[in-house]
């Protein structure tokens, strides 16, 4: 059905209705147009027109006065894969693609029943690709991992390991038993109340102290533990919201059927609650994904750290705008699509089951 024709405005009428409908709006429009005219042309000159896509060296690139995309061409492997052995870098590339495929498949509601299998399989593939040591792939120790795969691994493994823990925490916080409830409340509020930086410090400085003498634990695993603790507290709160949203009648009906606590939760409550909280869980995933950049503080070579290293490389020093813009676009693409997906999902779930 077409809208009434009177609603379709000509360009001039549209301008009047949307940009100049009062003297205040006209003023705002003019000020904004002036600002755009001041900002956009120099920005475009820098980004596109004066930009150097190829240059023999840093001096020639800098002389042009625009963005030096040749720097990215020169250093993208350092930024994306960091210290991973150069001739083996197809493996982290495949690992990135595997994680992206895993995330893309997770977006399909029909595949949700296979989600645990999908993620275990996906991350198993990633582990084989990154570590190697089997199928004739040379072993690469995780000290050498870095760049985008590390960022993605910290976020996805953190989320997957935190998920079962967070379900238990959410159930414990809703429990009738005061001791169990208290343990869950203290854990969740403690983790949510302190900055992630302090959790990372704790993991990197104090974790070795917690373990018996002789047991060592590498840097990546320490940071990973911090992210699991962090993600579990935040996920637990999302899941608790979902548990609270399930009508009481569902609990009572399960009781009336004679289901015990665990079967009631597993068969009746959790399937409904978890579906409800997937959009906020996607948002938690975005938070964790962005916060993986904090591992710079404990000296892991994630995407942000390797970009910082590329800026200080001896031959192409100081192209910080290009490097930061490049990784900002990568972060943006991931986060933007996830947040759009979560918004779409929220509407889609309201429409009912597939």
């Amino acid at each position: 059905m077409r809208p009434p024709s009177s609603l379709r405005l000509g360009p001039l009428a549209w301008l009047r209705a949307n940009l100049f409908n009062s003297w205040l709006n006209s003023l705002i429009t003019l000020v904004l147009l002036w600002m755009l005219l001041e900002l956009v042309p120099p920005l475009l000159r820098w980004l596109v027109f004066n930009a150097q896509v190829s240059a023999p060296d840093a001096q020639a690139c800098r002389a042009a006065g625009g963005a030096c995309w040749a720097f990215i061409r020169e250093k993208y492997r350092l930024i994306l894969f960091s210290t991973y052995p150069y001739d083996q870098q197809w493996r982290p590339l495949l690992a990135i693609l595997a994680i992206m495929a895993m995330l893309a498949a997770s977006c399909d509601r029909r595949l949700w029943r296979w989600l645990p299998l999908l993620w275990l399989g996906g991350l198993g593939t990633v582990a084989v690709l990154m570590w190697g040591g089997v199928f004739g792939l040379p072993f690469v120790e995780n000290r050498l991992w870095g760049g985008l795969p590390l960022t993605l691994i910290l976020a996805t493994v953190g989320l997957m390991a935190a998920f079962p823990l967070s379900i238990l925490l959410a159930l414990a916080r809703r429990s009738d038993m005061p001791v169990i409830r208290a343990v869950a409340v203290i854990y969740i509020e403690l983790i949510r109340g302190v900055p992630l930086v302090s959790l990372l410090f704790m993991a990197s400085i104090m974790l070795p102290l917690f373990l018996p003498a002789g047991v060592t634990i590498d840097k990546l695993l320490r940071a990973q533990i911090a992210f699991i603790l962090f993600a579990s507290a935040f996920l637990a709160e999302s899941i608790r919201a979902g548990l609270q949203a399930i009508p009481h009648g569902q609990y009572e009906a399960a009781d009336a059927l004679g289901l015990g606590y665990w079967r009631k939760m597993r068969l009746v409550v959790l399937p409904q609650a978890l579906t409800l909280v997937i959009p906020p869980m996607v948002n938690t995933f975005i938070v964790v994904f962005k916060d993986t950049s904090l591992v710079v503080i404990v000296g892991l070579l994630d995407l942000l750290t390797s970009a910082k290293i590329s800026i200080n490389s001896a031959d192409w020093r100081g192209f910080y705008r290009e490097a930061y813009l490049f990784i900002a676009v990568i972060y943006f693409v991931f986060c933007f699509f996830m947040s759009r997906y979560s918004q779409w999902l929220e509407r889609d779930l309201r429409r009912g089951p597939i």
Partner: protein
Amino acid sequence: MTVTSSSFSAPVRAAWLGDQTVRAVLYQALVAAAVAGAIWYLVSNTLDNLARQNIASGFGFLGRSASFAIGESLIDYSAADSYGRAIVVGMLNTLKVTGLSIVFATLIGVTVGISRLSSNWLLARLATVYVEMVRNVPLLLQLFLWYAIITENLPSPQQALNPLPGVFLSNRGLVMPVPVVDAAWTAGIAALLLAVVVSLGLSRWTRHRRQTTGRGFPFAAAVLALLLGLPLLVWGVFGATLVLDVPVLRGFNFRGGGAVSPELAALLLGLSIYTASYIAEIVRAGILAVDLGQTEAALALGLSPAQVLRLVVLPQALRVIVPPLTSQYLNLNKNCSLAVAIGYPDMVSVLNTIVNQTGQAVEGVGLIMGVYLAISVVITVVMAWYNRAVALVER
């Protein structure tokens, strides 16, 4: 009432195991024992390890001389002062950054949030672009970018930009003239504090008067006069002195005046702009949550559009806005700890230095967590009090 399957199978098992209460006690005892055991295991390992590394645990180190300098401080501090005082310096810096960023982020966030709902197409679109761009890029990356722009893009102090007389912008930060605080200024500042207290009292009195007698009082004008007039008056009575401490270039940097270091500037810019994008979304959702019928009803009652916003829409929107706003303020406070990555001496950064010097890791991390939890509790309590004040009163 809960009936579980176990009560039907009671005859098979021992009778006492089928009892809900007994089992609840048993489960809780098990969990408590497991948690206590885990804590005991970790603590005993830690004590073992500390003893092996010859690190004395305890907070005795706080009294020892810190012997490191801190770039900026709100109180007097030198390298000879104690670790304890260094931590207080860091804490005050954290509070300063949090306080200033909350103000800036709220101002930007409310503006952008309202702009997203504007009937002006261009303004609404630009506000959306701002929110999407800022929210989807990690804060730490933004901090690095701001810091790099300030330190690498701005000229050296010798060629500093000079937008206003006495104000210089260079890669060493922003320097500007500040008034020398003398007797008249001290008295003026005291008067300003007094004016704030009196305004708070006046606000209660105005509400009481309106509720009991129905008569209004020009509250906004009175408070404005009080906040501006009283300090000016006191300042004038004490001699109206104005001595400016103007920065001058000495060698490679500026001396005198007030300064905003590149680290502080980057931190304030990054935190404010990032948090503002979240606040904008909260404000937008809050305003959208107020039913259009409310506005129409208020207009039908003959209120002016400004009155509709102030008396009808905002009080209802605030109820939706305040709880998530609280958690954004708490996030901002926590994100302040990213200062450690760009070298601003906040509490985490100072404690990090101390831990590296003394090896008192457990105490250091414990202090960070303790102080942050305390700040969280204070902000939560204050916002809960405010939330009660704006909440719907059910009659």
